C-alpha cells in the first residue's frame, strides 16, 4: 500500500489530533450544528470533571450523616450549611449529587466496554461467517432488542445481585444488565457494516493475496466498519444513565451507604414531593437530565454530520489540505487503505 500512496499526488495528512472522531466533526460543523456539538461537549466535560474529582468537590462524603455539630437532620431546606438541603435519610443533597456522577461514570465505562467488546465480536463473526450462525444470532438479537430494556435489566439485576448490593456489586449489576440490552445494538450495526465492507474490492484483493481470515477480519473489515460506533457509543452512554436511574428508582440500585446513586435518591424523594419538599428530587433529577442531554447533543450532532440528508452546509475548505481532510473518511474507504 505504501508504494501506491507514494505515486499519488502529494497529500499532506492533517495531524493525528485533527483526525480524532469528535474533533474532526467539530471542524466540519457550522452554525447551529456546531453550537449543539459544543454545548454537548461542554456539559459532558463538566460531568467528567465532577465525576473524577468528586472526592475533592463534594463538601461531605456520600454516606455522611453528621458533621462537627452533630447530625445533619432530615429534609433540611437549602441553606448555608447544606447548599441544596438534606434528604429524608439525612444525607447532604449536594454531596450525593456530586458523588452520583462518579457512580454514573463507572457504570457507563463498564457497560460500554463489556457490550462493545461482546457486541463487536459477535457482529464481526455473524457478518463474516454468515449462514446459520448469522441467522440465529440475529433472531436472538432482535428478540432482545424488541423487548422493553428496563424489564430485561431488572431481570439481569435480580440475577446478578439479588437486588441489594455493595458499591462494586451494584455497579457491576447495573453495568451487566445494561450490557445485555446493548449487545444487540452493537451486533446489528457492526454486522451491517461488515456485510457492506465485505464485498468491497480490497477485501477480495486481500483474500486473493492469501491473507489469513483473522487478519482480513480485524485489519481489513473491522477497521473499516467502525464509522458508526462513536454515535452508538454516545447513545448507549445516555441510555446507560437512564437505565441505571430506572433500576435505582425501582429499588435495584446501590445502597446509600455504598455509593450515591441518583435514581435511588429520586425514589426516596417520592413521598417528599407530595408534601412540597422539592430539593430532594429536583437536584438529582436535573443531574440526570443534564448529563443525558450533554451526551445526546454530541450523539445527535455526530449523526447529523454523518447523514447527508441532514448535514447542514459544511464549512468551506480554506486550503486544499482541509478539503482533503473533510473527505478523508470516504477517501480512505474507497482506497481500501487500512492504516
Amino acid at each position: 500500500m505504501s508504494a501506491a500512496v507514494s505515486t499519488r499526488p502529494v497529500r499532506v495528512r492533517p495531524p493525528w489530533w485533527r483526525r480524532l472522531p469528535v474533533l474532526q466533526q467539530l471542524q466540519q460543523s457550522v452554525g447551529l450544528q456546531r453550537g449543539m456539538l459544543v454545548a454537548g461537549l461542554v456539559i459532558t466535560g463538566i460531568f467528567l470533571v465532577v465525576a473524577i474529582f468528586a472526592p475533592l468537590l463534594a463538601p461531605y462524603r456520600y454516606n455522611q450523616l453528621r458533621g462537627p455539630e452533630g447530625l445533619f437532620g432530615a429534609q433540611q431546606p437549602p441553606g448555608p450549611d447544606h447548599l441544596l438541603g438534606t434528604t429524608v435519610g439525612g444525607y447532604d443533597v449536594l454531596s450525593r449529587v456530586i458523588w452520583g456522577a462518579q457512580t454514573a461514570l463507572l457504570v457507563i465505562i463498564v457497560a460500554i466496554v463489556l457490550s462493545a467488546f461482546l457486541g463487536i465480536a459477535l457482529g464481526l463473526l455473524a457478518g463474516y461467517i454468515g449462514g446459520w450462525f448469522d441467522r440465529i444470532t440475529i433472531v436472538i438479537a432482535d428478540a432482545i432488542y424488541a423487548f422493553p430494556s428496563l424489564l430485561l435489566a431488572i431481570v439481569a439485576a435480580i440475577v446478578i445481585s439479588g437486588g441489594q448490593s455493595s458499591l462494586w456489586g451494584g455497579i457491576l449489576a447495573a453495568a451487566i444488565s445494561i450490557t445485555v440490552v446493548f449487545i444487540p445494538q452493537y451486533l446489528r450495526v457492526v454486522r451491517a457494516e461488515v456485510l457492506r465492507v465485505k464485498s468491497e474490492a480490497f477485501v477480495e484483493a486481500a483474500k486473493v493475496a492469501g491473507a489469513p481470515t483473522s487478519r482480513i477480519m480485524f485489519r481489513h473489515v473491522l477497521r473499516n466498519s467502525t464509522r458508526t460506533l462513536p454515535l452508538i457509543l454516545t447513545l448507549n452512554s445516555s441510555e446507560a444513565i437512564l437505565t441505571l436511574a430506572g433500576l435505582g428508582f425501582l429499588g435495584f440500585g446501590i445502597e446509600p451507604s455504598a455509593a450515591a446513586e441518583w435514581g435511588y435518591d429520586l425514589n426516596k424523594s417520592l413521598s417528599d414531593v407530595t408534601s412540597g419538599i422539592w430539593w430532594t428530587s429536583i437536584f438529582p433529577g436535573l443531574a440526570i437530565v443534564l448529563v443525558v442531554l450533554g451526551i445526546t447533543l454530541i450523539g445527535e450532532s455526530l449523526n447529523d454530520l454523518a447523514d447527508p440528508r441532514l448535514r447542514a452546509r459544511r464549512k468551506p475548505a480554506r486550503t486544499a489540505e482541509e478539503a482533503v481532510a473533510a473527505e478523508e473518511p470516504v477517501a480512505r474507504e474507497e482506497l481500501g487503505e487500512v492504516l
Partner: protein
Amino acid sequence: MTTVTAPATPSGEGTAGIKRARGGGLWRYLLVRFLLIFPTIFILVTLVFFLMRLTGDPITASLGDRLTPDQLAERIHEAGYDRPIIVQYLEYLGQVFTGNFGNSITDGRPITEVLWTYGSATLELVFYSLIVAFIVGIPLGMVAAYFRDRWGDASLRVFAILCYATPVFFAGLVLKLVFSVWLKWLPVAGRASTRTEIKLQQLDHPTGIYLIDAIQTGSSAAVWDVLAHAVLPALALGLLTAGVFLRLVRTNVIGTLSRDYVDAARSRGVGEFRLVRLHALKPALIPIITVIGLQIAMLLGGAVLTETTFEWKGLGFQLAYYLSKRDFVAVQGIVALLAVIVALTNFIVDIIAAILDPRVRY
C-alpha cells in the same frame, strides 16, 4: 422490528441485514412474519426462565427469611423446585404454551388473573400516552423540518432531546410538584378519587378502562375526575415518545421536502402549509408506524416507572410491588407475559406497515 435499529438512525439500515426473497408478496410476508413470532417469544421466555433460576429457587428468595430450613425444604419440594432444571423448564414451556404463567408466591393469585385485573389500567395509560405523543410530536416535527437549521428548529430539537433525556419518573415528579402540589390544579396520584372508584365498582359490566366505565355511569363529574387523574401520568410517559416522533417526523419531512414533486407542487402554487401537511408529511408517516412497535415496548417499560410514580394501579405498579416482595415467580410471569404482548404488537405493527408500504415486504 426489522426496520429500525436505533432511535437516532431512523432511516432503516436494519433492513440491510435481511436477505430479500425472490418474488413473494404480501401473503408470503405475512406468513414469514407470523412464524417469526414464535421464536421471539420462545427466546425471551427461555432467557427469562434461566436468568431467574440462576439466582436459586423462588421460594427461598421470597420466604427464605421467614421460614425454618425444614419448612422451606418442604415448600420447595411441594412446588417441584428440587427437580432437575431441564424438567422444570420443559414443564414451564408447556404451561406458557397453554397460557398458564403460574401463581404468585406472595398471594397465590394466577398471573393471568393479575394481567386481567391490572392490564386494562396499563393499556389505558399507554393509549393516553400515545395520544399525547401524536399531538405533540407530529406537528412540532413538521414545524422543525420547515424551519430547518434556524432557531425554531434548534429549540424544538433541544426540546426533543430533553424529552428523551428526562427519565419518566423525574418528569412525573416535576409535573406532580408543579401542577398538583404548588398549583393544586390536578390530583396527586391514583386513577380516580375514592368516590368515583366506588361508583365505578357498582357497575354491572366494568371494563376496567376507567374512562369507558365513567362514561357508562353517565355522570360527567366521574368522567372529569378520571380524565383529571390521567393528565399528568399521560404527559410524563407521552412526552418520552413525543420526542422520538418529533425527531423522526423532522428527519423524514426534511427528506421529502427536497423531493422533486414538492418543488413541482410549489411551482403550481400550492400553499406552504398544505405543502408540508399533505405532500411532505404523508410519506414521512410510514416510518412512524414502524417505530410504534418499538415505542410500545418502550412505553411498557416506562409504564412500570410512571405507574410507580403516580400510584397508577396497573401491571407496572404490580410488577414493582412483586419486585419489592422478591416474588420472582410473579415477576417472571409478568415479564414473560409482556414478552408475548410485545411480540404480538410488533407483528401487528409490521403488518400495518407492510400493507401501507410495499417496500417493507420481503
